[in-house]
């Protein structure tokens, strides 16, 4: 109990560290980054202590509320700041603090030559604190505080190198698109308050059953909008690719492992609401399925290593959202996949950072190739992550993704077939693009200038000479740890359904559901499409040579390279009409309102011009006016009195 009462320390420590780093400024440049690491590690230690505490209890006692203080006492709206420690939030806390600490350590080396390393760590700590608020909150209001906090940290970190204007624009884009989602969150909270008079989880969920389905659908859809914004789901997905402008540790922590999965957390946490609104649930599944394919297709065409990984993240979160939309049957697997994904994707991002570190910040995969001989550790860790995301047994991804595909096939009517097939197809495409990424980077022939090639390709020779090298120990160790997680975590947590039963107090007990197709067949099919994707990628990108300059490609390739025209669509559907509206409003403002106001002003000016002539500036004229006025006044008074 004592341990849990101190759970606020988990948030306070990184927050305090961020404050110290930001306030003390350059004075702490020398050791500031280690303070950041320490704060994150302290949170991780606290999380483990809490885990021990919870494991020591019976399943029924594992949900503990910790009241902190009255936050918003405003008439009917009373929001208390309280924390909710239960298996779901603790899972997230562990993921955030553990992966976060590893990435902190990695960043110490990665950001070594950046003069603003201290500020970077301050933001990272701020992010950790905000993310912990998000997952530990016991009400939507406090969750929203964390929600905005991570949005802020994300904005600050994407634009960390904001002297490059395109990076600053990317940060702004992420921020603005997140605001769209936040709008949904706010509407959802208002609807909740209007219906239940509270935004506290406990109150809301207790009252959700038996509430009007229309209201629940509205709340569910609005929450989904919020989730889409934060988790880069269709149609608010456009910011994630650009968010790769941030330093790679940021991409790994925020835009792969933790923040972008907040949407999944929100939907799973709001389970009771979604269960009362089947329509909203269906929309969630559809959004997940669309994003899943969307991200996968984009991933196939991207040549930018980090952007390809970002597309993959988008796609994998699509899987999770899909699973979360399936209801209690999918919750545990969504969270399970989220955890394993957090490990292997973070590991791969760190690997990508390591590659960039060794290749002079180059990100174009077409200029890599054959790097496995130069960065053995990176290669090995990346390979484990790659195998995990492919879902090759016995790596982590297999245990989580396969289950989602299975769950997608459960149900009646057309749904299992459609969503199951999409999930299955997605697995194949994932295998293709991840293998493509992997082979282009580490296999095949060198496509970079090593300075002494006898017959260098002209396109290669013009690029700067590269000296690929393995990264320092501080970077490789976190990668190794994450790789171990990629290999073993899924299997370990699946033994006897440990993870699903751990989450049961939150997600509810789910009976056995038989998919429409036999499980062995699904597993075989999944493995088959994965192998097909892998082989295709091998043939195209490892066995044959990859052109340094991308070929024109098919219509689909070109569309995918342009992110399936997501920016163009946003531009055409929202930005340009918006600008047109603004312009017409401005025109109306100028012509009508300004015209009226200005016209009045001009009339007054003319009038003033006329009366101006009375102001001669001669004191004597003024005195004469006064005298005449006085005489007239007295005369009038006399005339009326007498």
């Amino acid at each position: 109990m004592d341990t849990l009462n101190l759970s606020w320390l988990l948030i306070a420590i990184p927050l305090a560290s961020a404050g110290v780093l930001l306030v003390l400024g350059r004075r702490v440049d020398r050791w500031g980054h280690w303070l950041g690491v320490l704060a994150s590690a302290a949170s991780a230690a606290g999380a483990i202590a809490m885990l021990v505490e919870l494991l020591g209890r019976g399943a029924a006692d594992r949900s503990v509320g910790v009241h902190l203080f009255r936050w918003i006492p405003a008439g009917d709206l009373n929001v208390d700041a309280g924390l909710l420690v239960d298996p779901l939030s603790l899972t997230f806390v562990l993921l955030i603090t553990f992966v976060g600490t590893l990435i902190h350590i990695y960043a110490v080396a990665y950001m070594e030559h950046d003069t603003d390393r201290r500020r970077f760590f301050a933001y990272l700590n701020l992010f950790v604190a905000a993310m912990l608020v998000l997952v530990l909150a016991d009400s939507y209001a406090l969750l929203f505080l964390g929600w905005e906090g991570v949005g802020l940290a994300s904005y600050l970190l994407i634009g960390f190198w904001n002297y490059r204007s395109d990076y600053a624009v990317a940060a702004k884009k992420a921020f603005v698109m997140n605001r769209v989602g936040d709008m949904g969150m706010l509407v959802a909270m208002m609807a909740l308050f209007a219906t239940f008079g509270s935004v506290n989880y406990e109150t809301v969920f207790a009252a959700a059953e038996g509430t009007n389905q229309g209201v629940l659908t509205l709340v569910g859809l609005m929450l989904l909008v919020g989730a889409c914004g934060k988790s880069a789901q269709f149609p608010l997905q456009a910011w994630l690719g650009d968010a790769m402008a941030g330093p790679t540790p940021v991409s790994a922590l925020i835009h792969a492992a933790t923040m972008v999965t907040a949407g999944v957390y929100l939907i799973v946490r709001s389970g009771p609401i979604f269960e009362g609104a089947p329509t909203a649930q269906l929309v969630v599944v559809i959004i997940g399925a669309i994003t899943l394919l969307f991200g996968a297709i984009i991933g196939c065409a991207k040549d930018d290593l980090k952007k390809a990984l970002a597309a993959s993240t988008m796609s994998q979160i699509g899987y999770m959202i899909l699973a979360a939309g399936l209801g209690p049957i999918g919750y545990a697997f969504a969270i399970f996949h989220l955890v394993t994904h957090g490990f292997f994707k973070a590991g791969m991002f760190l690997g990508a950072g390591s590659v960039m570190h060794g290749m002079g910040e180059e990100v174009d995969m077409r200029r890599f190739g054959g790097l496995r001989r130069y960065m053995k550790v990176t290669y090995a860790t990346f390979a484990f992550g790659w195998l995990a995301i492919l879902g090759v047994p016995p790596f982590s991804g297999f245990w989580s993704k396969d289950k989602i595909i299975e769950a997608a096939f459960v149900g009646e009517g057309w749904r299992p077939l459609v969503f199951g097939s999409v999930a299955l197809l997605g697995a194949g495409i994932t295998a293709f693009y991840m293998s493509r990424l992997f082979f282009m980077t580490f296999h095949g022939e060198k496509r970079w200038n090593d300075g002494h090639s006898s017959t260098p390709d002209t396109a290669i020779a013009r690029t700067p000479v590269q000296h690929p090298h393995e990264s320092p120990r501080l970077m490789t160790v976190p990668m190794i740890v994450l790789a171990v997680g990629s290999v073993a975590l899924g299997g370990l947590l699946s033994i006897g359904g440990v993870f699903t039963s751990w989450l049961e107090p939150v997600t509810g007990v789910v009976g056995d559901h038989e998919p429409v197709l036999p499980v062995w067949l699904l597993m075989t099919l999944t493995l088959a499409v994965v192998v097909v994707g892998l082989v295709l990628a091998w043939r195209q990108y490892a066995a044959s040579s990859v052109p340094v300059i991308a070929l024109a490609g098919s219509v689909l390739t070109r569309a995918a390279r342009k992110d399936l025209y997501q920016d163009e669509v946003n531009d055409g559907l929202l930005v340009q009409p918006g600008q047109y509206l603004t312009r017409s409003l401005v025109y109306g403002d100028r012509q009508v309102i300004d015209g009226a106001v200005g016209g009045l002003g001009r009339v007054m000016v003319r009038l003033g011009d006329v009366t101006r002539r009375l102001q001669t500036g001669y004191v004597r004229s003024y005195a004469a006016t006064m005298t005449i006025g006085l005489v007239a006044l007295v005369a009038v008074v006399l005339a009326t009195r007498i």
Partner: protein
Amino acid sequence: MNPVAQTGLVLSTGEGVLFWVLAPLAVIGALWLLFSRRTVHIAASIAGVMIALAIFYTALEAPFLGVAQVVVYTGAVMMLFLFVIMLVGVDSSESLVETLAGQRWIAVLGGIGLVVLVVGIVVGAKLPDGVGLAQANADTNPVGVARLIFGEFVFSFELTGALLITAALGALILTHRQRLSKRIGQRELADAKLAAFGQGGSSETITVTPSPGVYARHNSADSPALDAFGEPVQSSVPTVLRIRGQEAGVDQLDADRVATIAARGDMKEIDG
């Protein structure tokens, strides 16, 4: 209307005579303001009006104010006016031609209107019987006034003191002139002259300015000094005279002397 008949206060015939003698004089003196062109005359006539008023005050049983009027107005204020007139220019006689269109008519109209209204009101008003100040001035008038000033009006009196000090300071500040450049003394002047000479100025600049009137036949100040060549030295005549055009030409000087000097100058030139 005959307030005198009913009043307890009976004005003496002497006062009536005094009034009818002084009042026209005061009005005439005041009219000087409107019609005289010489500022000094106006100031003098207004001083006269002030004295007339002082006498009226005394007649009105306010001897203290009468004395104060003489001291403050005639003695201080009007003298201050005279000083300023002197500073600004005694002889700057002003033309009485009106420059503002219609101003004179407005003024006449306003003036007549004022007189008619004020006099009309005063004459038409139902004024109370005169009481007289015999009782109030029982301990002499200054004592009565002093009781009020240092009693009922003491706060206003103190405020007036503050006002006077502020006014004095204000006048100091208003007429204060900031020295913007270094003070030019004898040494600086000599240095400047030498510097100008070094730059190729004429020898005249380095020496003392020649005095006028050396060759004068009459009032000397307007006769320019002559230089070694018999040419008049402009700077020897006071600036005022030069501007007024009252400077004497060379032809008005002693012709023989001028010729002699010129001849010497010529010889010098030949010698050189």
